[in-house]
């Protein structure tokens, strides 16, 4: 597709997405769409660094911080989410820098980086659960209903408003993804993911570049957590933080496709539809089944379709003649990248 054709397709698609809630008002379906958009944004945020081999299992932590900081500031200090959300994002960003800097400075890569971030997820979950006097612990937490200005409280009852907010946030994520994709930073990060020494020999400040993308990814993920909290008006440690949420991000991004902008969105559609149909089809008998299915699919995807559903589909449409070797594809999503 040419640049103009592509732009036109995006324009038409967006117009259709904006018009949708005004033409179709089924609240359940709109609810599912809002969830898909919010989680798509979270998965896109994860893939910002995941696509460069920086596999983080700590993003549940960032999301949890975004959600809980915003809600706690609102309930305890009466601080509007318009200020609370940026504070939550800054908190998550600061944590990302504190964890990221020593990792990158001392070249903790591959498995070891994954393990450090895994610990981060666990710690945030434990802190939320342990401070139950403030956070409600594992029973969950509800932002107080606004008595006055709803806009100031960022609390809306109608699905259409939330749909439009979620759509805007999702679009913001896609725009940032493209912005990074077209920047010189992408070259640097691709280079770093292949060979840190060679990247440094090309003049790249490896630690700084990795920190920048990690910070961006953490800020966006915290925003996703806060938006999710404002929409659902109820959060528990397990739904917005912890290892399960982190794993879900990895799964969705890989299934949808790590290396294309809409890949994580496709991943969100698949995971949420899967969870919903299991819930409706089997009810309480199927609690936790979706995680089992995620796990199985993740293994199958990494082996057989490492570029994800959308990535593989686009490849096939674009260049049917070109055959990329399996070894190279697998290298691209390999979680383990032993530091050279």
């Amino acid at each position: 597709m040419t640049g103009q054709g592509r732009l036109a397709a995006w324009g038409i698609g967006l117009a259709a997405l904006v018009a949708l809630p005004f033409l179709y008002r089924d609240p359940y379906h709109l609810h599912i769409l809002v969830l898909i958009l919010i989680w798509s944004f979270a998965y896109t945020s994860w893939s910002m660094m995941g696509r460069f081999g920086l596999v983080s299992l700590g993003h549940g932590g960032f999301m949890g911080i975004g959600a809980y900081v915003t809600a706690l500031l609102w309930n305890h200090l009466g601080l509007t989410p318009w200020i609370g959300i940026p504070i939550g994002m800054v908190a998550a960003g600061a944590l990302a820098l504190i964890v990221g800097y020593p990792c990158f400075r001392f070249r903790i890569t591959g498995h070891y980086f994954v393990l450090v971030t895994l610990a981060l997820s666990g710690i945030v979950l434990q802190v939320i659960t342990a401070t139950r006097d403030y956070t409600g612990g594992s029973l969950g937490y509800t932002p107080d209903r606004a008595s006055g200005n709803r806009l100031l409280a960022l609390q809306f009852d109608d699905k259409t408003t939330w749909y439009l907010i979620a759509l805007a946030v999702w679009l913001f994520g896609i725009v940032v993804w493209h912005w990074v994709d077209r920047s010189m930073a992408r070259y640097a990060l691709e280079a770093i993911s292949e060979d840190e020494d060679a990247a440094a020999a090309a003049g790249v400040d490896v630690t700084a570049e990795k920190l920048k993308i990690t910070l961006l990814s953490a800020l966006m993920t915290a925003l996703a957590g806060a938006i999710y909290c404002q929409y659902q008006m109820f959060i528990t440690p397990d739904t917005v933080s912890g290892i399960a949420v982190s794993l879900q991000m990895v799964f969705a991004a890989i299934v949808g496709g790590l290396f294309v902008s809409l890949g994580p969105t496709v991943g969100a559609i698949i995971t949420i539809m899967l969870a919903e149909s299991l819930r409706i089809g089997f009810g309480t008998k199927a609690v936790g089944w979706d995680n089992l299915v995620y796990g199985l699919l993740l293994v199958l995807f990494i082996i057989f379709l490492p570029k994800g559903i959308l990535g593989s589909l686009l490849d096939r449409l674009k260049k049917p003649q070109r055959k990329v070797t399996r070894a190279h594809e697998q290298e691209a999503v390999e979680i383990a990248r032993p530091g050279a």
Partner: protein
Amino acid sequence: MLEVSGLVKRFGGFTAVNNVSFRVDQGEILGLIGPNGSGKSTIFNMLSGTLAPTSGSIQFAGHEIAGLAPHRIINGGIGRTFQIPRPFRRLTIFENVALAGFYGQGRHSRARAEEAAERSLAMVGLPTDRHAGVDGLGAAGLKKLELAKALATAPKLLLADESLGGLDEAEMDQAADMLRNIRDELGITIIWVEHIMGVLMRVVDRVMVLDHGEKISEGLPSAVAGDPRVIEVYLGTDAETTQAAAAEARRRAGG
């Protein structure tokens, strides 16, 4: 331009480089030779910041650079190639070089980086086509790409690490001429590490010989090739090659 004194690198109990001092003058091509494990690459890695020296000083253009981070050294005007080419396979040839042009020159602008990429690719004789992938390059092409990446960082001093290994004779001569052109046309000072003595002797102004991490000889190619210590430790088993190289160097010096 470069003044190295008392450079030492120890890995645990093993001394890879032991008290090496040398200098390189503006516009010179210095050859650095020695058997495998003699410390050549270790010296390069310290000059380019990949390794921090155990002790010693490296003065480049009047500044102490020993122990600085690699990207700061590269941005300060030193470019390097790796012994085994290390291209970024997920980027195109052009992107590989543009990356070096952008980050190796203080991140000015994309336009300036792409300009540097075009110039460097043309200099080493690679196509400036934006879409060609790295996978299409052979051994000689990868070495050229390595050189183009280094040139795109706009170095004043180029560290060329065994750039001729794995090439046939014609390609070797071509590559040697290219290094000389880089010096002559761009005024870039070069330190050239090489196994293959014959080609090196033809191009360099001075040679330094390392053995077991120590400098054992230094001087004009003709003098070094005739040095009995060099013949003994470096080419002891292959004296004929050394003699031929010495004769070649003398002939060139004379003519």
